[in-house]
C-alpha cells in the first residue's frame, strides 16, 4: 500500500515511461506508417499480462497487449522467459493483433532476477507478404491469404536477434528493409522502457512501484464504476448494418448488442451479431473489448489513467463462430468497418441509458488505392494509398464536421499537391457537398467529393469503402446522413462501383469520383409551422 501522493508520482512517472517509449519509436521507426501516420503504440504490463500503463495513440491498441503477452507466457511458461529475450507475435487468433501487419514486440523486464514487467509495442508494417502489396486483400477468404503469421516466438535471445527469424521475414516481405527497420525501432523503444523501469524500481523500490500500479488499476475501475452508477439501471439494444463482406456482395451484415446496466455493472452482449463472414471483416474479441472500452471512455468524459482498470470495468460477451469471435481460418484484414459498427452499435445502446453517449453516426472510413507502372527499368510499382473520412455525426450540443474522422480511425488526408507531384493523377474536384449532413437540431457533418483523373494508361484502381448502401444513422430524432458513392467515368457511360472492388484498369482520361457519406443529425428539426399550429 502506498500513499496517494506516491501513487500519483509513480503513475505520472509510468505515463512518462510509455510516452518516452512512444517518442523513441516515432523517432526511430523506419516507415512513414510509424513516423507520420503514428500507427503504433507502447505499453508497460504486469508479469501476468495486465496493462500497467499505455500511451494511447490508437484506441484499438488498448485490447491488443494483454492477449499478446499472455500468449507469450502460455507458450514459454513463466520460467522459460529469460533476461535478454524478446518476442514477436502478430497472430490474431493466438495473440491479439487486429491483423497480420500489426506486429507486436514484447520484452520481459527482470528486476533482481525476477520477471517483473513486460514492455511492449505494436506497429503496423508496410508489407508482411501474402497475395497483395500491403498484405490486406479485400478478397481474402482465409487468414492464409493475409500475410505471414507469427505465433508467440522468441526472436531475440541473450540480446542477439535470431538470424533465422530475420531471414524468414526478409524473404517473405515485399519491403524487407522497412519491416526489419521498424522491428528494430520497436525493440529499441522496449529497451528504453525496460531501462526506465529498472531505474524507477531502484529509486522507489519495486514493491512500491507494484503497489502504485495495482492501486491505480483498482482506482481506475472504481472511477468508471462510480460514473456508471450515476446512470439509470436499464437494458438497451443497439445494432448496425454493414454493406457486405466484400465477397458476397449486397448482403448486409449485422452487428447487434444488448447493453445492460445495473448498479455499477455494465455488460455488452453481442450474441445476436451475425455469423462469421466469408470476407475479411471478422474481428477477434480483444478488439471488441477495445471498441467497447472506447465507448465507455467516451461516455464518462473524465480523464483517467490508461491501464487494465479500463478493460476490467465492464463485461463483454461474444458468441463463438460469430463475426466478433470467428474461428480459424476466418480472414480479418479489413477490420475497421466492423470496429466502427461495434462502436456505433455500442453508443446506440449506451445512448439510451446515458445521454452523454448520444452521438449520431459518422461516415466511418474508406481507402482508395491507385497502382502505377514505374518508369522503364524500375522494379515494382508505385502505389498511392489514401484513407478518407466523411462527415462526422452530430450530438445535442455540437454539429457534425465536414470530412472528419470518428471513432478509432484518425488518418490525415494526403495533400493534393503531393499526390499530383508524385503520381500521374490529377484531382479534378475536392469540394464540400454542402447541406448533405443529416438534418437535425444539430446537423450532421457534410460529405465531400474527391474526383480523380488518371493521366496514364495501365493504372490499377481499388476501393475499400463502406456505407455505400447503409447510411450513417441519426440520433434523438435527427435524420440519417447520406450514403457514399463511387462512380467510374461519371456521365453517359458511368458505372457505379461497389463499396469494395479491386484492380479496375484505368486509361488516361478515365475518371473516378468518390462521394463520401455525410454524418447523421441529432435532435428533431424545430418545425415552426407545427409549433404555431399546436399553439
Amino acid at each position, binding site marked *: 500500500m502506498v*500513499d*496517494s*501522493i506516491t*501513487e*500519483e*508520482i509513480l503513475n*505520472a*512517472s509510468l*505515463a*512518462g515511461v510509455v*510516452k*518516452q517509449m*512512444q*517518442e523513441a519509436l516515432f*523517432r*526511430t521507426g*523506419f516507415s*512513414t506508417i510509424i*513516423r*507520420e501516420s503514428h500507427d503504433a503504440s507502447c505499453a508497460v504490463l504486469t508479469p501476468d499480462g495486465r496493462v500497467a500503463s499505455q500511451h494511447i495513440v490508437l*484506441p484499438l491498441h488498448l485490447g491488443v497487449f494483454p492477449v499478446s503477452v499472455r500468449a507469450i507466457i502460455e507458450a514459454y511458461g513463466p520460467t522459460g522467459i529469460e533476461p535478454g529475450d524478446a518476442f514477436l507475435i502478430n497472430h490474431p487468433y493466438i495473440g491479439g493483433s487486429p491483423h497480420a501487419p500489426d506486429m507486436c514486440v514484447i520484452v520481459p523486464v527482470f528486476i533482481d532476477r525476477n520477471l517483473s514487467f513486460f514492455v511492449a509495442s505494436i506497429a503496423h508494417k508496410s508489407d508482411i507478404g501474402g497475395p497483395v502489396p500491403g498484405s490486406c486483400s479485400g478478397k481474402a477468404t482465409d487468414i492464409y491469404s493475409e500475410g505471414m503469421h507469427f505465433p508467440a516466438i522468441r526472436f531475440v535471445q541473450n540480446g542477439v536477434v535470431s538470424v533465422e527469424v530475420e531471414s524468414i521475414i526478409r524473404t517473405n516481405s515485399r519491403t524487407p*528493409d522497412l519491416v526489419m*527497420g521498424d522491428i528494430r*525501432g520497436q525493440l*529499441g523503444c522496449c529497451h*528504453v522502457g525496460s531501462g526506465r523501469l529498472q531505474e524507477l524500481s531502484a529509486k522507489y523500490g519495486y514493491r512500491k512501484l507494484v503497489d502504485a500500479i495495482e492501486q491505480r488499476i483498482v*482506482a481506475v475501475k472504481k*472511477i468508471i464504476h*462510480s460514473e456508471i452508477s450515476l446512470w439509470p439501471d436499464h437494458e438497451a439494444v443497439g445494432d448496425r448494418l454493414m454493406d457486405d463482406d466484400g465477397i458476397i456482395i449486397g448482403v448486409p451484415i449485422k452487428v447487434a448488442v444488448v447493453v445492460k446496466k445495473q448498479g455499477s455493472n455494465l455488460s455488452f452482449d453481442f450474441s445476436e451479431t451475425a455469423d462469421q463472414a466469408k470476407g475479411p471483416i471478422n474481428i477477434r474479441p480483444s478488439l471488441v473489448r477495445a471498441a467497447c472500452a*472506447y465507448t465507455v471512455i*467516451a*461516455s464518462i468524459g473524465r480523464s483517467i489513467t490508461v491501464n487494465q482498470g479500463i478493460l476490467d470495468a465492464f463485461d463483454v460477451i461474444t458468441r463463438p463462430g460469430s463475426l466478433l469471435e470467428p474461428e480459424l481460418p476466418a480472414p480479418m484484414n479489413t477490420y475497421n468497418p466492423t470496429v466502427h459498427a461495434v462502436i456505433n452499435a455500442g453508443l446506440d445502446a449506451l445512448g439510451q441509458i446515458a445521454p*452523454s453517449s448520444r*452521438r449520431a453516426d459518422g461516415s466511418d472510413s474508406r481507402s482508395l488505392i491507385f497502382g502505377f507502372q514505374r518508369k522503364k527499368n524500375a522494379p515494382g510499382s508505385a502505389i498511392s494509398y489514401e484513407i478518407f*473520412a466523411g462527415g*462526422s455525426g452530430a450530438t445535442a*450540443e*455540437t454539429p457534425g*464536421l*465536414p*470530412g*472528419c*474522422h470518428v471513432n*478509432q480511425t*484518425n*488518418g*490525415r*488526408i494526403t*495533400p*493534393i*499537391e503531393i499526390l*499530383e507531384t508524385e503520381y500521374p493523377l*490529377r484531382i*479534378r*474536384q*475536392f*469540394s*464540400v457537398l*454542402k447541406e448533405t449532413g443529416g438534418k437535425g437540431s444539430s446537423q450532421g457533418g457534410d460529405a*465531400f467529393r474527391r474526383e480523380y483523373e488518371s493521366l496514364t494508361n495501365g493504372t490499377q484502381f481499388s476501393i475499400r469503402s463502406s456505407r455505400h448502401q447503409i447510411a450513417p444513422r441519426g440520433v434523438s430524432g435527427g435524420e440519417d446522413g447520406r450514403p457514399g458513392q463511387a462512380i467510374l467515368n461519371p456521365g453517359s457511360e458511368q458505372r457505379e462501383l461497389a463499396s469494395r472492388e479491386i484492380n479496375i484498369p484505368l486509361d488516361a482520361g478515365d475518371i473516378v469520383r468518390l462521394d463520401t457519406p455525410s454524418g447523421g443529425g441529432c435532435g428533431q428539426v424545430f418545425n415552426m409551422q407545427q409549433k404555431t399550429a399546436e399553439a
Partner: protein
Amino acid sequence: MLAKVQIAVDTGGTFSDFTYFDVAGDLHSFKVPSTPESPEKAVINGLRKIIESGVVADDVEIFIHGTTVGTNTLLQEHGGRTALLITEGFDAVYEVQEQARPYGSEIFNLKYQRPKLLVDRSDVVEIPERIGSQGEVVRGLDLAEARKRIEALKGQDIEAIAICFLFSFINSDHEKAVQAIVEEVLPGIPVTLSSGICPFIREYYRLSTTVINAYLTPKMDRYLSGLDNEMSGLGIKTNKRYVMQSNGGVASISNTARRPVSTLMSGLAGGVMASLKILEQAGISSGISFDMGGTSCDVAVSEGRSAEIRDRFEIDGRHICLPSVQVETLSAGGGTLAWVDDLSQLHVGPESAGAVPGPVAYGRGGDTPTVTDCNVALGYLGNRAEVAEHLTLDVSAAKAAISEKLAIPLDLDEATAALGVLKVIDIKMSEAIRALATSKGLDLRDFTLVSFGGAGPLHSSRIMRELNLKQVLVPAMPGVTSALGLLEADVRHEFIRTRPNALNDLQPSDFSQTLGKLRAEAIAQLSVDGFSEEQMRMEMQLDLRYQGQGYELSVDVEMDTIDVAYIRKQFDAIHAKKFGHAALTQPVELMAYRVIGIGVTERKNSAFNKGPLNSSEASQAIIREAVFDVDGVPTKFELPVWQRTDLSQGSNYDGPLVIEQADTTTLIVPGQYVFIDDFGNLIVRETD
C-alpha cells in the same frame, strides 16, 4: 559606426519588460504594467520613462519589440473579416483541413470540434483557374468571371483578402493577376498571397497560414503603425524599429505589418534566443531553456549554437507552416491547481488558477491550493520585493487551504501534502522534458538547465536532480531574460523556392541558379533594411526528404561546393542523427531551396555579461524555517535566505538556501551547492 542606445521591450500578459543599453553602454531594465486594451500604451509609457530618465530620443539607434498582439488576436478570434479566394472546385481543402483529430484524448471526445473557421463559408470565393504540378496552366484564369465574383464582395465590410490557389508555390501568375483585380475593385484592403507568405507545397497548411495572415493584418497594421507614429512623436528618429519573429530573428515594423503571422511565436522566441546566447557566452553547448511562469512552462532543447527550427506548428488547433523556433509549452506553472477528487485521488493540474483568482496566498479570492501556495507553505517563497509592491503573501491562508483541501482528505500532514504536490508537478515537467529529449535522440546527462521566468528557479534544482542533469544556470536577470534575448537578435529574412525534383536529376547549375536568385533577393531586402554587404550573412539550405516522407530536413550548403553525391551524404548523415537511421538506397527528393539573409547588428556589449553583482556592504543571510523531503520524511531546516546582490564571487554556498532578487527566487535543496560564474550567472550543482 558606434552603437548608441539600444532598447528592447517584451510585452507580456501582466507586465511589459524593458531592457536597454544607454549611451555609456550600461544595461538597465524595468517593468511597466501591460495595457491589453491598447497594447501600444504600455510600450509608449516605457519609452517615455526611458527618455525621462535622461536618454536623448535622438540617440536611440535600435528598438526591438516582442509582441503578443498577433497571438492574442488569433486566440481571441478578434481579427478582421476576411474573404478567401481559392481555386474553383476545391473548397474542401479549407473545411476538411487535416481530416484527423489531434492525437491524445480528443480521439475519445464524441463532441470534438475544430477551431472556428476564420472565414465564413459565404466569404469563400471560388475562382475559375487551375495550375498543374509542373507549374503548367491546366485551366486558364477566367479574368471576367473572377472580376464579377470579386465585385460581389463590395459593400460587405470585408477587411482583408487571402488568396490561395493550388500549385501557386511553383507558378504564382494567377494569384498575382487576381491580386491586381482585388486591388482595383476593393482598393485599400490588404491582400495576402499564399505564394508570397509561404511558398511551400501542401495546400492545406499553406492556405491556413495565408488565411491567418490576412485575418491578423488589419489589427496588426493598426497596432504597429500607431506605435510607429507615437515613437516618432517621442522624437525617436531611427528607422531600425524591429519586431521579433517566430524564427528567432527580427524584421522591420513595416515588413511585420504585412506578415503578422510570422510573429505568432514572437514572445517565446525571445526566451529561446536568450537562453542560446547565455549558453554560448558561458561556453556550454547543450542546454534546455526552461521558462516557468504563472500558468505554463516553455521548454526548448538545444545542442550547439542555433535554435531548433521547425517548419510547421499549431496554435490552438490552427496550422501554420512558417519556420519557428521549436518550443514546447506545458501546462505547469505557479498557478497550477492541486485538488483531491471524490475517490481520494490527488490531481495536480493541468488546470490553473491563472492571474485571477490566483494562488490562495495572494488573497485575491483563490481558495484552491496551487503550486505557489505549496512553495509558500514550505517556506521556499517569501515576500519578494516585487510581490510585496502589489500584495503581501498570506502564509497562513496558504497553509490552511493545503491542510483543508489536500492534507485532511488524503489523511496526511500538511507538509507531506505540500511536498507531494511539488513532487508531482516536478515529475510531470521532468517527464515532458525527457520525452522531448527522446524525440530528438538526446542524452540529457551533459545538459545545462537554463532556468528563468517567475517560477523557473524555484523548481529547477529538483528537476535537475530528477533528470540527472549537469547543472542549473540562473541568469543574472531571470525575470527579463526574454527581453534581453530581443536585445541580442539579428534581422533575419528567409527566401524560399519550392521545386520538387528527384535529387539525382539535378545539375550543379540548377542549384547555383536558384540559390543565386534567392541570394540576390535577400541582399536586396537587407539593403533596403539599411545593411551594408559586410553586415550581411547568408545561410543556404536545401530541403530534402526520402521519397514518400511527409516532411523535409534542411541541409546546409555552400554555393561553390554543391554536388549531388555530397548533398546526399549530408542528408543521410543528418537523417541518421535525427532519427537513428538512414535509408541509403531510398531515392531522395529535393523539395525546396532556402536562403536565409541575416543582417548583423553591432552590439555595445553583451546583454548577459553582468559580471558579479556584489553590494558594497558585507551582509548576512536571514534565516527562515523551511521543510524539505529527506528520504521521504518531511524535515525542518533552518533555511538561509540570501539577497542575490549579497553573494560573493568565488564562494560556494551549500544547500539548502534560497536566493532572492527582485523578479524571482532561486531554491537550492539539501545536497546541492551554488556559485556565481564569471558572467554573473548562478550555477547550481549536486554536491557529490
